[in-house]
């Protein structure tokens, strides 16, 4: 279970929050000119990285406000939370601990006890 820092209320238990998927997905600006393939990209396809990930959360059982977070999906470590409308921090700011795209991190995964470095 995660401890999440709401930018408005401070640190609260995960049970108060709901995840809202990838952050900073923008709707096409000129919908009448967008092809079916581009619509498919916008409607169905989301990033799914193993590592640093920008995502949205809502403090459903609290202030009910939406905010963004940067999380490492290979360890579930939340690196930063920030308000909607704020500029997302550059991804290079965060160090990805993964050795390969599908590899396991040093700590934090169910497999780490059986994986030799």
């Amino acid at each position: 279970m995660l401890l999440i820092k709401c930018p408005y209320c401070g640190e609260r238990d995960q049970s108060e929050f709901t995840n809202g998927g990838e952050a900073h997905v923008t709707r096409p600006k000129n919908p009448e000119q967008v092809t079916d393939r581009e619509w498919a990209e916008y409607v169905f396809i989301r990033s799914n990285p193993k590592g640093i990930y920008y995502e949205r959360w809502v403090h459903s059982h609290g202030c009910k406000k939406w905010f963004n977070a940067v999380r490492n999906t290979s360890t579930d470590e939340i690196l930063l939370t920030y308000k909607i409308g704020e500029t997302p921090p550059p991804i290079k700011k965060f160090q990805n601990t993964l050795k390969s795209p599908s590899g396991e991190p040093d700590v934090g995964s169910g497999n780490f006890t059986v994986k030799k470095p």
Partner: protein
Amino acid sequence: MWRSPEPRKFYDIIIVGGGGHGLGTAYYLAKEHGLKNIAVIEKGWLGSGNTGRNTTIIRSNYLWDESAHLYDHSLKLWENLSTELNYNVMFSQRGVLNLAHNEHDIKEIKRRVSANQLNGIDSHWADPKEIKKLVPIMNINNCRYPVLGASFQPRGGVARHDAVAWGYAMRADELGVDVIQNCEVKKIRTKNGKVYGVETTKGIIRAKRVGVVASGHTGVLAETAGVRLPLQSKPLQALVSEPIKPVINTVVMSNAVHAYVSQSDKGELVIGAGTDGYNSFTQRGGYNIIEDTIRSIVELYPIFGKMKMLRQWGGIVDICPDASPIISKCDVEGLYFNCGWGTGGFKATPGSANLFAHTIAKDKAHSINAPFSLERFVSGRLVDEHGAAAVAH
């Protein structure tokens, strides 16, 4: 058993992922399509991913014609799999119940039962009396969400998950397939829009065709070839209890209160939970999900109240927006994907492997898996199976 060969420099076909689906694909490629020079590359040991982490439930009571054909194709292969592989996969057709707890459930399940019957699938509506007879230990009316009925598929059941991987591995190996374990594929290499090979921890291996069946990590690998798939990876948890005497001889699933249970041959209760509410690659999941599941289990089966749980774990499942799989070619020539099985891939193992082998061998989808192409997200012809998927996500 199987050999543990060092990888060659070149293969005609490489399958990435040594679970049931991947090993099965290699087996059918060699057996049914007579192809040679095939390798299966697995980053851990065989069946160390979701093949060894699921709750082994097998059924085919899906709503839409496309899914019904796909999952029933698989169920028919299950019925003959031990003979086919000459290895006991312990397929036990003990029946599967899907419970209804409210008016909406009743309508949805009755609709699905009717659809199943039109597709020749042996599903029927069971009233509370029949359920109580099948599962005497179930508390059907003295609880927050009473049991109002269920769908019952007698041909459904469970199988031994490891045996499926081992059986396919042995027979594929006999047909000359190289099964390479402890070798992680890091990157899929492409050249001029065609697949070139894979970069692994044992070096670069060239291939004419590459099939990726890496469940939760399929999306991550696809990205290395510049292909974006409509997948989201989440942990799906399960747990087993201490072994007890036989108390439940069927499989019971409940979508609404989110708990499902069966009893293994060793006597352990095998309990499945829902997916966690956020993308993650940690093979453990959050404790709140387990708490919810256990609460429902104890309410439905008060007799389990004082039992101890032995183990809990998570597997990373890749979920599609319409809760249906993808067995498809893509824009890169010679690159194929078999993914998006989400929370219910084990039941499809033989069927999925069989159809994926066909797709790779002929470079063209079989009529059964043609509706499950990547193209459906562009055309909008989705196969929405959120109701039949039985796990909330």
